[in-house]
């Protein structure tokens, strides 16, 4: 067992973990944060995307021990403390950027990362930025629209 200490969604969490424990299993099974799903076994689908120190990673492809001392943000830590949704979450709802919703936590987290690096992306940049996230339902069109809408909203809010 290895002791890890991680800030998860604003809270200090720690515990003893087996080195082979995947981050996504620590989040879901030890911390009960089941908002982050597992969609594949091949690191391809991106459903499990979370932020580590602000950058997107696939939590099924990271060991819990690899994030010792770091800060993890999951879909459950994105809203404001008063419950107000993040602009990307709102835009996914408004633009019908989801159908079954399985890919959505990962899509939203990857979009947040994308917009933090590129606040004003073109459609092509949005599509490239989300290339690691697969959606079986929407055909991506409304997801791209949601990210563009969130970008405009966030720009308006900061200016």
């Amino acid at each position: 067992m290895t002791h890890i200490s991680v800030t998860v969604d604003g809270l200090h969490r720690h515990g003893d973990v087996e080195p082979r424990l995947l981050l996504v299993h620590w989040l879901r099974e030890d911390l009960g944060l089941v908002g982050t799903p597992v969609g594949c076994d091949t690191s391809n689908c991106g459903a499990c995307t979370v932020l580590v120190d602000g950058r997107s990673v696939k939590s099924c492809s990271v060991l819990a021990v690899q994030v010792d001392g770091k800060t993890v943000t999951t879909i459950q830590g994105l809203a404001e403390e008063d419950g107000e949704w993040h602009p990307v979450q709102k835009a996914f709802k408004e633009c019908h950027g989801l159908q079954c919703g399985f890919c959505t936590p990962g899509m939203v987290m990857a979009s947040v990362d994308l917009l933090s690096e590129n606040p004003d992306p073109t459609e092509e940049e949005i599509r490239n930025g989300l290339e690691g996230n697969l959606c079986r339902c929407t055909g991506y069109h409304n997801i791209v629209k949601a990210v563009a809408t969130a970008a405009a909203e966030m720009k308006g809010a900061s200016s």
Partner: protein
Amino acid sequence: MIPAEFDYVKAGSVDEAVAALVAGGEDSKVLGGGQSLLPVLRLRLNSPSVLVDVSGIDELRQVTDEGSSILVGAGVTTHEVMHHALVTAHVPLLSQAAGLVADPAIRHLGTFGGSCTHADPSGDMPSVAAALDAEFVVAGPGGRRTVAASDFFVDFFTTAVGLDEVLVAVRLPKMDGWGSHYEKFHRTAQAWAIVGVAAAVKVEGGAITGAKVALTNMGPTPVRATSVEAALVGGPATVEAIAGASGSAADGTSPTTDTHADAEFRQHLARVLTARAVTKAAGL
């Protein structure tokens, strides 16, 4: 799936990592970003007894200006390679190709050194290193040695890095005054190259005076297209001359046939993509 059990060592220095590898014996393995290793462990294609995590070693995380070359630490992530000022300024071929590796989340963790040591025949970083005659700094129990790119890539998923060794850094010559381009052919987003071409050319007074071309996935290791390089140098920097020189790109190669492409199609792609890569590198 869940990987088989292993012990985990977080190394604080290269010496510590080498010592842990020696102590762990032949079943120990270096963990870089884990972006190739973890999928392998999850599918239980491999089950090392010890993983030695090198991601926290400061020395591996540096990019250093050495005058006529830059030294990129093995632990520098693919995302950092894309954006680091020294890389974009002096080896833009590397930063451009890095942007075509996998997807953003994988690039945030996957490392330049891990990509090179993993040595997947369809990996994009090895052929860039081969095209630019990179040098690999490798540390082991007997000290450090430098390995030329032509000796580094040995076979499918096999490099000159021994079981008890760590890749520390990769030295790349500054390509100031050269044009470059990495051309990658793949059918879906976030996919490995079916064929890729790394090209750098120097154009002076309308003539090509230097050319470096390497092919991805045209054999078990990166392939230098030496006949193309020879045909380009001394010729005019024109679309026609480049197309002519690229005709020999597939000569002597023996690419695989798989579900993505057969060998003949890969050879066709090598010629077409070489022409495209060199043309763009020459700024035409």
